[in-house]
């Protein structure tokens, strides 16, 4: 049977993970840890912020994980992982120095070129901040290409705060306006209290110049999108990253489908315009 136009010879390793060294382990909270990775051959992952990789733990399995750093000269990349299943629990057991497997990068990621010249409103709920950290690092590396940057970061309790030793540098070196909130009052917290939408009334945005990048738990989207629209942002300028359970990462297995889109191929980053008519999206 003649299968024409086939690229298969170049893709015989489509499902084969590449050996990757864990160069650093940096626990974040009781639930999340961050690992830094480097391919054994030192090659660059070649990713955009917002893309994901399939992480393979030998003898355990594979899981899709957001990349949490911007490309860097050392060719390392970070993953920040919440302990939820077999693979993520195994990631939490890593000490550093081990070799695990990586496939990818997959998905579209954030189009950092298209965001140039705009003010950015970065909204992260809980571990939604993880893929956005790559954006924040990228913007800090190319600070002159972007306008004003405001980061809203909400978490349930102070103990769940991620990247706590980096947040100051986002403000000082990154020249970004960082606003934190915890959902409910807590003895260890003297800052703003309330769900993330309570940070919106005080925001001064130029809706013509601003692009919002929103990542969080499913429940968060509808409320944050409403706030963004009330601030005058067009639906094209509200950019989301959606979570689904990708198994293959290459548009075959069907698990990550939202209506007619494959999150692993067409996403995970979508504008609200793209998904607002998709009843399975948010």
């Amino acid at each position, binding site marked *: *049977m003649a299968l024409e136009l086939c690229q298969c010879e170049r893709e015989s390793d489509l499902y084969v993970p590449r050996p990757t060294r864990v160069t650093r382990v940096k626990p974040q909270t009781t639930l999340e840890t961050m690992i830094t990775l480097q391919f054994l051959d030192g090659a660059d992952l070649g990713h955009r912020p917002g893309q994901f990789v399939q992480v393979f733990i*030998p003898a355990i399995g594979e899981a899709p994980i957001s990349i949490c750093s911007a490309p860097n000269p050392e060719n390392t990349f970070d993953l920040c992982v919440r302990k939820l299943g077999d693979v993520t629990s195994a990631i939490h057991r890593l000490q550093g120095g081990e070799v695990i*497997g990586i496939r990818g990068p997959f998905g579209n990621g954030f189009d950092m070129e298209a965001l140039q010249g705009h003010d950015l409103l970065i909204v992260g709920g809980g571990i939604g901040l993880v893929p956005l950290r790559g954006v924040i690092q990228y913007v800090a590396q190319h600070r002159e290409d972007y306008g004003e940057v405001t980061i809203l970061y909400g978490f349930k309790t102070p103990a769940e705060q991620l990247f706590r030793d980096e947040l100051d540098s986002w403000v000082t070196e990154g020249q970004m306006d960082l606003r934190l909130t915890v959902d409910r009052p807590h003895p260890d917290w003297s800052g703003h209290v309330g769900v993330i939408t309570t940070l919106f009334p005080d925001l001064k945005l130029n809706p013509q110049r601003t692009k919002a990048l929103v990542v969080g738990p499913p429940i968060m989207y509808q409320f944050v999108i409403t706030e963004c629209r009330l601030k005058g942002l067009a639906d094209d300028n509200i950019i989301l990253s959606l979570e689904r359970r990708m198994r*293959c990462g290459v548009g*075959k297995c069907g698990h990550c489908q939202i209506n007619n889109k494959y999150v692993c191929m067409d996403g995970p980053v979508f504008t609200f315009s793209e998904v607002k008519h998709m009843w*399975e999206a948010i």
Partner: protein
Amino acid sequence: MTVRVIDKQGVRRLVENLQQEAKVVAPHRREGENQWAFQEVTDPDQICLEYVTTCLPPKEFAFPTRETLVRYRLGDPFAAEAVIQAEPIVLFGVHPCDIYGLQCLDIAYCDEHCDPNWVARRAQMRIVGVDCIPDEWCFCAAMGTATVDSGFDLFLNALGDGAYLVEVGTEAGEKMLAGLELREATAAEIAAVKKRLTQRIKRERQIEEDTRNLPLRFTGKAQSPVWEKHAERCYSCGTCVLVCPTCICFDVVDEVSLDLQEGTRDRVWDGCMLEDFAVVASGENFREERFQRLRHRHFRKYAYLFTKYGRPYCCGCGRCVRQCLVHIDPVAILNDLIAESKGGATRGA
């Protein structure tokens, strides 16, 4: 290309010739049952070419129910390699609907990324098609898959008494006929086969709309009562996806040897009608309700993939409704949607 005639003895010799170079798989009748299955031919006389649709489509010979994609040795570092196992195989006696199904998977598996395992198996696969015997469930005529004009190396149309008209689809097909010394078909024989096909198509179940318009009929139908009406009886057992020639979805699982020296990553058939198909790590299920899963499956078949690839991802074989415990019927669903979009209310909703 001329159409030739092969008689019963010729078919036997053809199969024996093919067995010299490849594994030959053909429909067999299950002992004592009115059911058929594709299995490897050991005795050509056991092949049953005049059969109603098999329980499972032949896609499993290119997309096994379970297949190893990657083999690895544990250790530091681990060593992984692709596993692509393919062998020469002839699918002998495939109905047009199933040929259409294989073509659907060719398109989807080679879109953007090319699945190396599917392609390796298909590259070594030859197809001998045969016209079918419809039953009360199939609707291939409505889907336009009662006949196919490509996707086979040879195609056989029954003339009676075990003889067939032979249509050649590819050069490989022509080579299969070498040495068989077949006579040319007469005009009367060709006309008789055409007439039989036309009559058969008229008898089949119909969809009350040109199928080219189906994606249009799905527009605005996300909230239709049709989905709840039909999903009400669904057991979420997943039989419909497991027997579907155009279903492609899979899960990936790891198997590790008992001595913890090596392991494999295997893919296994999976399906969007199963309850946990769209569950993510946090536990959220994006298609928690039965009607959401039924709706997704039908949108995928008749709208999403149809629009993306220009053909319905349903071959009209009727296996889903035939094997469904409660006979949830895509023809009834489609006709309900069509009636609703033409202005009527959903019957029984």
